[in-house]
């Protein structure tokens, strides 16, 4: 499982807390970062086990 690539991609993405507002995903947005990493795994057919933000800190 390639956490590093997934995190690198996630950090180029944005999230929308309110309609019409897009904010960058950073190390300080743990939920959005984890959700995007999961999205990366899903879209690239990468199998993964349960993980958390704490597992990603190493790659930030």
């Amino acid at each position, binding site marked *: 499982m390639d956490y590093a690539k997934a995190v690198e991609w996630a950090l180029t993405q944005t999230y929308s807390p309110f309609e019409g507002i897009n904010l960058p995903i950073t*190390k300080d947005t743990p*939920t959005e970062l984890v959700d995007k990493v999961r999205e990366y795994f899903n879209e690239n057919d990468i199998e993964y086990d349960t993980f*958390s933000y704490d597992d990603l800190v190493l790659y930030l």
Partner: protein
Amino acid sequence: MGRQEYIDTVSLVGRKVEEFVAFNAIAVADTSAKFSTIVDVSKYKKIIIEYYSTLNNATNDVNPIMAVYDDSYKAVKTHSGTTSIPLNARSALVQITGTDFSSLNSIYTKIRLQIAVGKVPDSGSITVKIKGVVN
């Protein structure tokens, strides 16, 4: 959400309120129960448990639940007699206030939280925080 204190396990967010992140944005990918570490709640006069969930499954309801245990894995009953609380809200911050666990920290000095899901989510994560008001 999205504040620096998620990086630290414990963070003081005010003079009289302390926050402990029991589950830090967990991307749940199985149905096994997950336990937090043990939290010493003896110095708090009030506890609030908050969660923020984006867990989702395109075809099934995920049905996440939370339970509170003491430090010897004995489940704590809520005032209504159940041992679990449904965490069904999606993309929402929900406070579980004193209605269920108002006397929790007068009985238990140490607790741990458990979360589990009925169906495996295919996206999202869940964060659970314990906020304690210091005596």
